[in-house]
């Protein structure tokens, strides 16, 4: 199974190629990378692996939430590449990718993934990895930090947004961890195996913040 993954919604842009039986090949760019820089990086990973775009089984991307422009960048890159290669797309939650990366690095069982959504708000979701399959026990949402209360045992916090929370002392926290393309690729491989891919035109971005303008009648 060959997958090319893009993550541009949260943190530095990254691209990952996972090819059959081989280690993941990764590229991490500078913030605000142009599309053609990311595309050249993707092309480089594919050719280094001795593959061609037509060898891809699917393309994956972080589908948000995250920076609005970054969410669209990753989705449009994945869509374009998939349309060119003639393969489907798997969109992965950036909050799930964040939580899973922290879980893999630290062995945490229950992870609250929190991204700074700016304007004094957070993108947040909670996952329980203690049993398989993992369970989303707190749905993705846009919240104010002061409304977050941690109830129950064994929770740990991951992501930039954790720094905005007033937490109990002793709670495990990693504010530096961020979603990346390698984690997106890993999660997408599972989704693909269970039929979670869609045609390029059907990938849905998730913004969570949907009120972005005020109608002229309400000003």
């Amino acid at each position, binding site marked *: 199974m060959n997958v090319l993954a893009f993550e541009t919604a949260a943190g530095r842009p990254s691209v990952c190629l996972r090819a059959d039986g081989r280690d993941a090949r990764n590229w991490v760019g500078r913030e605000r990378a142009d599309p*053609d820089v990311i595309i050249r990086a993707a092309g480089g990973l594919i050719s280094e692996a001795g593959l061609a775009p037509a060898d891809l089984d699917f393309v994956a991307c972080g589908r948000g939430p995250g920076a*609005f422009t970054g969410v669209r960048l990753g989705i449009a890159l994945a869509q374009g590449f998939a349309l*060119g290669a003639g393969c489907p797309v798997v969109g992965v939650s950036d909050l799930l990718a964040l939580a899973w990366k922290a879980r893999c690095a630290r062995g945490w069982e229950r992870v609250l993934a929190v991204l700074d959504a700016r304007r004094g708000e957070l993108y947040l979701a909670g996952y329980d990895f203690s049993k398989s399959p993992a369970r989303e026990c707190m749905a993705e949402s846009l919240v104010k930090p002061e409304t977050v209360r941690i109830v129950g045992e064994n929770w740990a916090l991951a992501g930039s947004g954790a720094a905005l929370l007033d937490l109990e002392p002793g709670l495990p926290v990693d504010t530096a961890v961020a979603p990346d393309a390698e984690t997106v690729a890993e999660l997408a491989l599972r989704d693909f195996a269970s039929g979670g891919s869609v045609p390029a035109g059907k990938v849905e971005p998730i913004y969570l913040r949907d009120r972005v303008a*005020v109608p002229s009648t309400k000003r």
Partner: protein
Amino acid sequence: MKVLGIETSCDETGVAVYQEGTGIVWEALYSQIALHREYGGVVPELASRDHVRRLAPMVERALAEAGAPDAVAWTAGPGLIGALLVGASLGTAFAAARALPALAVNHLEGHLLAPLMGEDAPEFPFVVLLVSGGHTLLVEARALGAYRLLGTTLDDAAGEAFDKTASLLGLPYPGGPELARLAATGRAGGFDLPRPLLNRPGCDFSFSGLKTAVLYAARKQDGGDDGWRADLARDFEEAVVEVLCEKSRRALEATGHGELVVAGGVAANARLREGLGRMAERQGVRVIFPAPGLCTDNGAMIAHAGWRRLAAGERPQPAKVRARWPLDELQSPGK
């Protein structure tokens, strides 16, 4: 050569396929007018969200119905950065996956070259009046990529002035076509509106003062009979058309060229077409309007402009999206 064109610079998602020797063989356009209406204007974030929702399914259909392209052309600017990024990302990624040339196209050049697709196409050199919601320009087109700016607006674009004036008169967004419809029922001459910059030499425009004059004229009305709105709309339209016609005449005179190409959304305005037609007859020049579907933003003009540049030897280069990208910064292919 078959070129896939992608346009996402503002509030229209356009995809088209231009085939050398045949012309446009496939095209689709999705307008976001309904999406932005309740906000009274284009909301950039909503525009970008809609582009990413619409574009891939449109490209899927283009590929299925028009076959595989040999190159991709996408709008790189000027326009809304977030909106441009959608087309740029999808277009460059698609081209990379198929090892096709990908060309960044200037949106204004797309408009300017669109009439060359028609049967009575002009030949270089000619003068272009580009009038839309975002631009009002007079340009001397000497050759592909060789453009000299003759005049531009110092404030509002003509289409923007139409939309803002329509809003002052209580008309729904987008107000330009609504204002023209209202003006058609009005009588001319009731309001003494200025003809901005007509008393100065040169080809520059200014429309914000005219809009303000409409505002003051409207404030003096005491309600009652609403007929004054149609009369004011008519006088506003007359003023804009007179300025556009006179500046176009000056541009033709200054360059000595015998053809005027009119492009952009305002080119669909009936009174402007009449006015320019009369001016051209008096001056003994030819005025050329693109087909109505090519006046507004569309993917066809981007596919066509991309094909022209590729056919002339342009090599694809890494490109960035640009909110501003003046026409006179362009170069002819190969230079």
